[in-house]
């Protein structure tokens, strides 16, 4: 039943994405609304599947990298759906929804490895740690998509070479302000999530810092975003450089999330000896 729901969710995400991609090329008025609704349906099925898993295992579904990616994909889609209502920028879907499909697919394709022992995932603070980090990453993922859109549009205007996307993409200032919004709301969440994580580590392993690869990469990521936030606030950094940095930041997140869990050791991954 659970996997059936996941398949339905996946199909919804796929068809919603196809709808949004078609919208990128053809300005069909109803298409974004239909795609949005399909994504919403996908998120509902996905949500039910996640709850079923939670009931079965008794903890939040983030024990394996598969579970974590699937949960993240869900948080990401829900974040996007809400943002879309707020921002009313329909073309955003064309750049965001493919990411949702990628996350969802990779949660199936990546090998199932235990990241965290399930007893940790019953702790309230760990749940807050996961929730706030996932929400922050979802916002950063949107910022990443918007950054890509910004760079494309910037290129059109700077190089004076107008592809078909020039017409379809919104103004630079609009894109920049959306990226700013995602960044400024994502960063405090990320900071809080990391602090809670380190505090937990201090309790469980009696030391907040264990030279775990995931810890190191998280800190690097945090620093990238901290620089971005600081420069934006203090110097008024914006535009191209800010867009590149948010793309870099998100790449670092992916490296932390997937790379470190799969390839490197540490207590967030299966190879951990400490657990």
């Amino acid at each position: 039943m659970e996997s059936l729901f996941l398949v339905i969710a996946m199909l919804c995400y796929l068809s919603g994405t196809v709808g949004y991609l078609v919208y990128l090329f053809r300005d069909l008025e109803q298409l974004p609304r239909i795609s949005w609704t399909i994504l919403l349906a996908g998120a509902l099925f996905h949500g039910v599947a996640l709850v079923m898993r939670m009931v079965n295992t008794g903890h939040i579904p983030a024990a394996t990298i598969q579970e974590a990616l699937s949960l993240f994909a869900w948080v990401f889609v829900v974040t996007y759906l809400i943002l879309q209502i707020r921002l009313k920028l329909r073309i955003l879907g064309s750049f965001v929804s493919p990411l949702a499909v990628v996350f969802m697919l990779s949660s199936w394709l990546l090998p199932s490895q235990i990241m965290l022992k399930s007893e940790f995932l019953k702790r309230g603070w760990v749940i807050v740690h996961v929730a706030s980090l996932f929400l922050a990453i979802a916002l950063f993922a949107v910022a990443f998509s918007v950054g890509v859109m910004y760079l494309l549009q910037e290129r059109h205007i700077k190089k004076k070479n107008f592809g078909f996307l020039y017409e379809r993409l919104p103004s630079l200032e609009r894109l920049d302000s959306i990226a700013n919004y995602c960044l400024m709301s994502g960063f405090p969440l990320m900071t809080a999530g990391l602090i809670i994580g380190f505090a937990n580590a201090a309790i469980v392993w009696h030391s907040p810092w264990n030279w775990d690869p995931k810890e190191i990469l998280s800190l690097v990521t945090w620093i990238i975003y901290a620089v971005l936030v600081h420069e934006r606030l203090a110097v008024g950094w914006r535009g191209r450089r800010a867009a590149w940095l948010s793309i870099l930041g998100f790449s670092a997140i992916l490296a932390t999330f997937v790379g470190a869990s799969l390839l490197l050791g540490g207590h967030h991954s299966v190879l951990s000896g400490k657990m």
Partner: protein
Amino acid sequence: MSHIVLLGMNHKTAPVEIREQLAVACRKEVNPLHMLPHLEQVDEMVFLSTCNRVEFLFTCNSLARGIREITAVLRAHVGLSDSVPLDSYLYVHKDLEAVRHLFMVASSLDSMIVGEPQVLGQLKDAYRNAVEYRTVRVVLNRLLHKSFSVAKRVRTETCIGSCAVSVSYAAVELARKIFGDLRDKRVLLIGAGEMAELAAEHFRRQGVRRMMVANRTLERAMELAARFKAETVAFDRFLEELKATDIVVSSTGAQEPVISYRDVRSRMRERRNKPLFFIDIAVPRDVDPRVNEIDNVYVYDIDDLQGVIDHNREERQNQAQIAEHIINEETIKFNNWMNSLSAVPTIVSVREKAEEIRRNELRKTFSQLPDLSDREKEAIEILTASIIKKLLHDPIVFLKQKAQRNAQAIYMDFTQQLFNLVEGASEEDAAPVEGEDAQDQTFLKTAKK
């Protein structure tokens, strides 16, 4: 069979002197529609007058005489004496061509500036007038409504309307792609030539409220400032204004660039890197091209803007082909409807519909009464057939009589609606078209008459 005719002249066919007279007539209060009761040949009539075109759309039974009558009305309205030869300026489109031409006009494909949206509004006004004067009935009513929906289709399915055409308009479009909303942006005009004025006008239309003017001769700067409610800046100090400016329109006659790489670079930090857009319409150029390399700064010189326009022109050509296809399609659809308005096809489809209902009902009844003998079945068949025949006899005789009259279109259309005959077409028309109620009302009024 009545004909649809469109007779008129526009910027392409009439020389300036005649068009000037059109412009005068365009402001007149009198509408030539009031002439309709005095016209013998013309049944329905719509009059469209803009400053670049004057067109009569009408239906008549005799082409030659109808055209003669309307030409006289046109002469009287524009105030041309009989001695002025009009024929070479006039175009006369008949039937399908008239429909096509109207669709072209409504979609702004026949305009001086292709894609400008104004003409549709003017056409809607023309239609409203015609409704007021009660000069439109079935055919033109439907044709005008169709033309509005065709225009809408062309607008949504092509980008005819959104491609910039003039240099200053292209500049404004670019600014919108950089800044989005221009209302809270500040524009600095350096140099106060004609081009700068034009650009300023475009920006003001986009809602820009804050403008500054810097010019070597203060007098001219003040003149321009007064026109756009702008402030003036001493010419030597305009660089200081860069800090608080978003868009710079530069058009000085200087031989050397007046804005250098370093001038801008050093001010970007103070501006907190907010985007800065230079529109350099001066020749030789006022802004060092290297300024474009600075982050968040965009420099467009006159050639770049010309490039934008050329790009749009190409795009426009493509879009025009798509638009033409839409129009051809819709013209054929309209023609099909026109053809269905004559008596024979209407009568045929009334009969077909009745026969279809009869057969369906018989099938149902027979399947519920399996015990019926063949003779009984035959009797029922004959009974139902004769009921249908008798019931339809009077309406069909009536339609055949009306087929000879001028007003046949009204009765045919009414019959089609009464029996719900045109399924394909009626579905499409059920889509909410602006003024649908007005259409029904005029229809009833004219039908009563």
